[in-house]
């Protein structure tokens, strides 16, 4: 018997044959940067997930949990990868109190399905993340990927109110609760956000929900250069107008966005000028608020001497907003090899952004810049193959991006990179002084290091 078959047989004896898969083609679907697991397990309950964890402890195995597998390329490849734990079998709503705007939902619930159910009660969860057609709620949370509604609704830290999970001792644990305000015990659930499965197996998440806005709209304003676009953004921020989203697209980013838009609306795509810097603003509210914001933005765009500006109706706003929400997904496949950085800067001043573009110019790399809301920048470098010279150029560029971000009191991570680049560059950037504390946290949750070893910051 092969090692894999052997492992699968032992697992089957714990969970039953119908929960375990060890067939080659399926195993490959769970590969992370080329690493293939020894078996796939599909628990149907939190208790079964806990049994898998206990099995892994006894057998000294490493588990990587996944949802729809849309973002397995985040982080470093695992140091060991024995079991792929597919959490999509846990997909019920445990509790929904529309009158209290609170929700408790199983880890594997697809976001789309959840959105439909909440919409029936006029509510939603502000996790507008890429791959939202397939993503599971826990996958979206654990990936730490940004929501395009972050400016208005914050990050999950602001609306996750509790969680249930299996810790690294194989015990079912919880923290927080189902009420919107709560300081009972340590807020351990906050640690799960963006933890990439390295702390625990999330089985259930509790959220506060929000009321769907009555109306929404958007604006696209174009500028001939970065300085113009930045000045406009500053003016918007100073005006205090409440926006749901605000993004600046470099000319290359406009071209790429237009190309995606063209697949569904050639007319709309034609209205985006790929020679310009574009600022996209999206806003929501009641029937009186939306036109008011639109008016104010048009006035600000005029004052900022925009080369052009256009108000988007709800349909166009949803269309363009949806494409930008998915940007992470389509950018990473937009050329044969892509390095996509996420840079968090206290303030995205034009100087820092110009420096990033200079990194690309110096290495003759094609680059797209997407300045997102809340100080997040997506900076993408495109190369035409994964040959040595391309990898070398990306490696050098990465070092410069990490140091530029650090100099601006921010930091950069690589959201996506060719697997070959990951063996040369740590996608998390240079270690920070708080790494020791992170290790303490990891060790408290997962003393045997069974969860996604090596995937996270500093080799955690």
């Amino acid at each position: 018997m092969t090692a894999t078959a052997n492992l699968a047989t032992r697992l089957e004896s714990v969970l039953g044959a119908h929960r375990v898969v060890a067939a080659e083609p399926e195993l490959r679907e769970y590969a992370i940067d080329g690493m293939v697991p020894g078996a796939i397990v599909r628990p149907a309950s939190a208790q079964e997930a806990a049994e898998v964890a206990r099995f892994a402890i006894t057998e000294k195995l490493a588990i990587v949990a996944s949802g729809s597998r849309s973002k397995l390329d985040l982080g470093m490849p695992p140091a060991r990868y024995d079991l792929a734990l597919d959490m999509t079998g846990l997909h019920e709503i445990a509790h929904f109190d529309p009158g209290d705007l609170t929700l408790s939902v199983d880890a594997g619930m697809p976001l789309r399905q959840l959105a439909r159910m909440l919409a029936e009660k006029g509510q939603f969860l502000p996790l507008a993340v890429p791959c939202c057609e397939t993503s599971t709620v826990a996958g979206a949370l654990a990936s730490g990927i940004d929501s395009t509604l972050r400016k208005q609704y914050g990050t999950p830290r602001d609306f996750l109110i509790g969680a249930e999970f299996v810790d690294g001792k194989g015990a079912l644990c919880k923290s927080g609760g189902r009420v919107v305000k709560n300081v009972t015990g340590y807020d351990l659930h906050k640690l799960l956000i963006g933890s990439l499965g390295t702390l625990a197996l999330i089985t259930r998440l509790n959220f506060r929900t929000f009321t769907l806005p009555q109306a929404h709209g958007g604006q696209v304003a174009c500028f001939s250069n970065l300085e113009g676009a930045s000045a406009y953004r500053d003016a918007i921020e100073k005006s205090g107008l409440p926006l749901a989203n605000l993004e600046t697209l470099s000319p290359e980013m406009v071209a790429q966005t237009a190309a995606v838009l063209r697949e569904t609306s050639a007319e709309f795509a034609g209205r985006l000028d790929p020679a310009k810097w574009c600022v996209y603003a999206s806003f929501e509210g009641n029937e009186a608020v939306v036109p008011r914001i639109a008016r104010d933005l048009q006035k600000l765009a005029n004052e900022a001497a925009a080369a052009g500006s256009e108000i988007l109706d709800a349909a166009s706003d949803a269309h363009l907003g949806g494409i930008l929400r998915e940007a992470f997904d389509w950018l990473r496949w937009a050329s044969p090899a892509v390095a996509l950085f996420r840079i968090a800067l206290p303030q995205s001043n034009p100087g820092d952004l110009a420096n990033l573009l200079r990194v690309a110019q110096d290495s003759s790399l094609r680059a797209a810049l997407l300045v997102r809301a809340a100080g997040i920048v997506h900076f993408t470098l495109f190369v035409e193959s994964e040959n040595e010279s391309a990898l070398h150029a990306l490696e050098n560029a990465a070092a410069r991006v990490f140091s530029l971000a650090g100099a601006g009191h921010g930091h950069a991570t690589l959201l996506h990179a060719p697997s070959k680049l990951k063996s040369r560059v740590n996608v998390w950037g240079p270690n920070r002084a708080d790494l020791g504390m992170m290790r303490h946290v990891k060790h408290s949750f997962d003393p045997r290091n069974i969860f996604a070893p090596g995937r996270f910051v500093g080799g955690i």
Partner: protein
Amino acid sequence: MPASLLRELNSLLGPSNVLHKIEDLVLYEYDGSVEKARPDLVVFPHTTEDVSRILKLATKYNVPIVGRGSGTGLSGGALARGGGTMIVFARMNRILELDLENARAVVQPGVVNLDITRAVEHAGLYFAPDPSSQKSCTIGGNVAENAGGPHTLAYGVTVNHVTALELVLPDGEIVRVGSKHGDTPGYDLCGLFVGSEGTLALVTEITVKLTRKAEAVKTLLAIFDAVDDASNTVAEITARGITPAACEMVDGWTLCAIEDYIHAGFPRDSAAILLVEVEGLREAVEAQAAAVEDVCRTHHAREVRIARDDRERDLLWKGRKNAFGALGRLAPSNYVLDGVIPRSKLPQALQQIQSIGKKYGFSIGNIFHAGDGNLHPIVLYDPRDPQQFENAIAASREIIRYCVELGGALTGEHGVGMEKNELMPLLFSDADFDLMRRVHDAFNPDSSLNPGKIFPLSKGCGEIRVRKQAETLPAHV
């Protein structure tokens, strides 16, 4: 307490920053709660390095340490339950940096909450978390308790406004977590430390977000002849998805006490009032105010008044925020409880509180953050009567148990401290405690920092360093 520790602290900080005489120490044996416990020494650091050195000395002499801001906490968090040295942050009260461009302030822990707003309001900014104690409580205490306030309904509690912390671990190591921006790769350590009640590390510097003042604001006072009508109004405001900036409820009995004291213009003959504030763009505020008024009328509000100007608005808020002081005039002591429930359960919770009050023979007032489901029943009692004190504690436990039965939690904003640590098993299992204890021990392995808090003594952290005589003595006996 070893005499050499006192000597070393004196030479480290200077005698004016060290208290050791009983008559000085007794001032620090209370906080806002009903408990008391006396520290052996009280010290006032001025810098982070001072704090680090104090902790190193404490490790050397194996004495417990407890941090303290203004001592307004209501769960005994700042009491030296294990004796030892108390570090009071009152003299670390400087605002270190105002970055108005990026809406951030970097402050020392002893800065008083309202002073942050005072320092930035000229630029149209403010610090959003606004505990009713904001004129006296410190930002360090807010961080430790993850404090809320009336306006956290719309703007979130302290943790939603903190982006970075400088911490000193029990062994004296100085570390930083988070960043000015707020996002750092790795685990959200800021999110863990905020609300950890001073049991993992001491906070020596805090970076907070500043919020821009809204363009328009309207404050509504809705007056009801039945408590049920007021609570049904809150439930429906929530269910309709109207998110006011604040939604506070005061029952009639409490109102009378406030009126006698503050003359805020609250009607004495009503059963309850709601103080609802809506903020945002003018157009949004108009619509929300109309929607709130509509819900109030549907639930038989006798009258809905709208504050005409800032003066009227300030008066209403003064009435709300000084309510506890007003109640202090009615009985020798009051016990402010803090429970939280799903908002859809508000009407039944208020009924149950009244019947628990009757059972124990207390008048229980209610003045609370209704929009969050965060209850603050206030039990008025005479602490000189030991039976009354016992009954006050028993009534409070029954109320908190009922909150849990309704799907709620033990505390919405005041923290667990040494008030509710024995109630924790109502919510948490042995496995939950085991994990929380491992996290605790990762940072505070000897329980030298704030021992005897959060964890039930039977499920505590290693050796529980609590002196028996310090346990749950009523503060006023």
